[in-house]
């Protein structure tokens, strides 16, 4: 190889002149390009420009968000790995760890919903099994535009089928999620995919390379021109076959991913791996740089050795390709034979594509020429970081209960709420997901949290995804707190000890101070809640610039939390179990109707402050509920969130087929107590003989607790105002989504 001193700039493979336009097309600001010139002491080659654009874009560098992400609490005695690796990891005892993360695939899912969502699932699964964890659960948080928008149906259909198509084939149970609709997501949907895996706590794998002169090994699928940066198309140098070379949509191959998983598991078990990194965004570039930079080593790549799906790929294309189902590894030299056997068994492409060096350079060779020669640490460390200007968001003032009229017909109001797009049954969605494979699902979709057995002794984990964007929009700080609090509540409601969260921060254009203000305040709210609740952030993802025609999405900091149950048998579900059980309201009656579902769906108003979140109360009430479940006092719990007490009790009835009568409501118009969305509240059902015990325990801890009715019959009776058969409720609840989707092929 004709390698010269660094002063000698590498030969530019396709001799493309670096013009200001080209720089701009690569999403680099003039001052960012200045920084590159300064760092290199010369002009970058075209390939190098591509590498910088990939490493320094918002997605990889977190340049707008880093400053604020640093403020999040990330530590606890049980945290094995916080943010900074492919996924976070927590210790759950018995030498077991749960590795988990969430990631967005918003834009690709809008362009091609099936493949966009499918490859989103594929990417997050790889992040998890890269660390040595076998995926045991997947979840997803989806936001679509208004149901009336012409594209919504098509997007719902494609995204759900894509998630199902990938996850089902791969063999991971998809066990929970969220599906909401709002006009602010017209033209910019959100697809946030979560995965959790189970690893041996003392055998977690990282991307940090170790050892000089070791081979860098490529495994998985071949590299094609998938998802290459849009700038390639814009540069005219490609001649007549531009059409052919158009950046293509990434297509997922879940079968290959499953083989990749099994091969990796065998490599881990046979102690073959020194370092491993999946190729996600900016594929080969970011995985190689990450491995080297973390290990304080240089990396040399020879692109001729990269398995290629298409002919005539340039260095630029290979470095930026986002082909799926690929990994980069550093193997123990003495295990090379064994590793080759394993990869051959799983029929995966593999190739030695480079080596580690001690010079801290990232060198890329193609056809005998040096096409990139960059300082490896600076590529990551020197990435721009911005303290973007932000303004304090305008917070909606509280809405006085007396300014919210009672509904003319309460029965009708409740039916409307439980059948509205956001609260209706999502069965149409989750029945397309295989939520049972692996035979460990103790709680299937439809409850407060999914519960998965992880150990023969009965130990289980719980998972829940949450955020209420309308709250965040009205008050980013309180809304940020609420997302975490609701997740904490959902885990507590099944009896799980909340352990840690991952987040996916979806916002608009951070270059607009009011959007940046939303972001900053929401992250502060998130952080505050995590700190108080002892619920650290161990991984996450940021998705900015979610806008269409200058209008941002609702600020959507999605939270996905993991909790632990010592024994799945001590788990609560939302379904009523026995007639005659006493219904209790824990946390007091509601008073706040601002931003409530009642206000929006029944009165057509989206206004007011969201219910404030008292984190100390959340913590206390959560612990109380978990204690009751653990002690076997109750097996029937539901938290109160969207739609308030009425919707919570209705959901408990619908899940069981049993009815309930609630006859103790506070004085005044019942619509406030029934529909308010005040936080830190739960409904539980207990045997009558337990009532005194629960009342005393609550009094001791100064927790509002009151019997409000009982489980009986097959009708739901709430105060004097609501009387509906459970069958009728169920019919309304189940109807909307299948009927809506009917019109889609």
């Amino acid at each position: 190889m004709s390698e010269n001193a660094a002063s000698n700039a590498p030969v530019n493979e396709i001799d493309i002149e670096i013009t200001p336009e080209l720089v701009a097309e690569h999403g680099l600001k003039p001052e960012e390009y200045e920084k590159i010139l300064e760092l290199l002491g010369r002009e970058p080659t075209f390939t190098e420009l591509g590498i910088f654009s990939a490493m320094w874009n918002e997605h990889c560098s977190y340049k707008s968000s880093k400053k604020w992400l640093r403020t999040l609490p990330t530590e606890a005695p049980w945290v094995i790995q916080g943010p900074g690796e492919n996924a976070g990891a927590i210790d759950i005892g018995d030498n077991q760890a749960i590795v988990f993360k969430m990631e967005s695939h918003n834009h690709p899912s809008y362009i091609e919903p099936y493949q966009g969502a499918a490859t989103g699932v594929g990417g997050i699964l790889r992040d998890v099994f890269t660390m040595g964890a076998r995926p045991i659960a997947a979840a997803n948080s989806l936001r679509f535009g208004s149901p009336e928008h012409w594209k919504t149906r098509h997007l719902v259909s494609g995204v759900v089928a894509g998630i199902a198509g990938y996850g089902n084939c791969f063999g991971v149970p998809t066990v929970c999620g969220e599906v909401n609709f709002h006009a602010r997501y017209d033209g910019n949907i959100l697809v946030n995919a979560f995965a959790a895996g189970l690893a041996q706590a003392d055998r977690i794998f990282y991307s940090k390379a170790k050892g000089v002169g070791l081979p860098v090994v490529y495994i998985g699928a071949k590299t094609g021109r998938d998802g290459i940066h849009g700038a390639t198309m814009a540069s005219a140098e490609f001649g007549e076959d531009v059409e052919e070379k158009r950046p293509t949509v990434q297509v997922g191959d879940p079968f290959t991913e499953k083989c990749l998983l099994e091969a990796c598991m065998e490599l881990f078990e046979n102690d073959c791996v020194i370092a491993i990194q999946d190729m996600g965004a900016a594929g080969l570039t970011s995985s190689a740089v990450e491995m080297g930079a973390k290990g304080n080593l240089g990396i040399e790549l020879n692109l001729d050795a990269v398995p290629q799906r298409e002919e005539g790929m340039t260095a630029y294309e290979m470095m930026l390709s986002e082909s799926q189902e690929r990994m980069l590894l550093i193997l123990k030299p003495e295990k090379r034979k064994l590793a080759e056997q394993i990869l051959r068994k799983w029929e995966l492409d593999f190739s030695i594509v480079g080596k580690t060096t001690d010079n801290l350079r990232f060198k890329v060779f193609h056809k005998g020429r040096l096409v990139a020669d960059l300082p490896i640490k600076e590529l990551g460390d020197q990435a721009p970081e911005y303290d973007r200007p932000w303004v304090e968001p305008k917070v909606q003032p509280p809405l006085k209960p007396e300014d919210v009229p009672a509904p003319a017909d309460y029965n009708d109001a409740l039916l409307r709420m439980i059948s509205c797009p956001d609260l209706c049954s999502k069965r149409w969605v989750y029945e397309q997901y295989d939520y049972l494979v692996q035979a460990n699902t103790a709680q299937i979709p439809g409850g407060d949290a999914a519960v998965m057995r992880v150990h023969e002794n009965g130990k289980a984990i719980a998972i829940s995804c949450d955020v209420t964007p309308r709250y965040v929009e009205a008050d980013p700080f309180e809304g940020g707190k609420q997302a975490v609090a609701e997740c904490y509540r959902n885990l507590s409601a099944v009896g799980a000890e909340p352990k840690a969260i991952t987040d996916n921060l979806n916002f608009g254009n951070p270059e607009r101070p009011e959007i940046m203000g939303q972001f900053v305040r929401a992250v502060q709210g998130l952080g505050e809640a995590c700190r108080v609740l002892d619920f650290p952030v161990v991984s996450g993802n940021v998705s900015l610039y979610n806008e269409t025609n200058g209008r941002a999405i609702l600020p959507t900091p999605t939270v996905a939390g993991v909790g632990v149950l010592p024994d799945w048998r001590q788990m609560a579900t939302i379904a009523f179990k026995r007639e005659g059980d006493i219904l209790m309201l824990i946390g007091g009656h509601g008073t706040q109707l601002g931003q409530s579902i009642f206000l929006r769906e029944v009165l057509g108003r989206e206004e007011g402050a969201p219910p404030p979140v008292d984190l100390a109360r959340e913590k206390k009430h959560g612990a109380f509920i978990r204690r009751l479940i653990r002690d076997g006092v109750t097996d029937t719990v539901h938290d109160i969130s969207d739609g308030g007490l009425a919707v919570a009790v209705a959901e408990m009835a619908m899940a069981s087929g049993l009815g309930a009568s609630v006859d103790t409501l506070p004085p005044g118009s019942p619509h406030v107590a029934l529909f308010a969305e005040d936080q830190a509240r739960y409904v539980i059902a207990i045997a009558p003989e337990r009532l005194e015990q629960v009342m005393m325990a609550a009094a001791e801890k100064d927790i509002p607790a009151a019997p409000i009715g009982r489980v009986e019959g097959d009708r739901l009776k709430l105060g004097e105002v609501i009387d509906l058969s459970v069958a009728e409720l169920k019919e309304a609840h189940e109807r909307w989504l299948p009927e809506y989707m009917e019109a889609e092929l």
Partner: protein
Amino acid sequence: MQSVVVLFPGINREHDMIRALEIASGRKPHVAWHTDTALPKGVDLVVIPGGFSYGDYLRAGAIAARSPIMRAVIAAAEKGVKVLGVCNGFQILTEAHLLPGALMRNAGLKFVCRTVRLRVENDSTFFTNRLKKGDILPCPVAHHDGNYYADEETLKRLEGEGRVVFRYAEGTNPNGSVNDIAGVMNERGNVIGMMPHPEDRVEALHGGDECLPLFLSIVEEVAA
């Protein structure tokens, strides 16, 4: 009982199946890999579990049905060894012509995961002898291509000879299968295929163990 679970790349319900066999028999089954050319010696039960062998590409089960191990499975079946295929296993058995008919795309065109009610139609098979004809079991399904099809003549024979082993009970057919067929057997009665997943309904965690008797039937039958 000596059982073997046959694995192909892309199979993903082997753990569920192995666990169910273990719960029922107290013994770990052998495992065979698609490139193997022979089954372990002395095996008296071959089980092909669910999943997406080869991604279900081309047709569900098509590629797996042509792999080396299937020649051994076919030979064993001809000798009378008992063979059970569940979900993708059923698809593979039809593609290998060990069972008649074919499994087409669900009538609703979507993957469907839900618990259906499964009616036992023939209670004198190696998989159902612990149950009674007409028994109804809750049992999950999870598939995209479970729409059973056979031509008129084949159907007549299947029905006439009592070779429909399971049917989806009234109103629970999830995929459009002809005659609500959920599982069938071969003429000799030693090969059974079914779409639902009884292995996912064998313990309290699954919401009930109503399908455990099926596996206990095997143990009894095969151990004898």
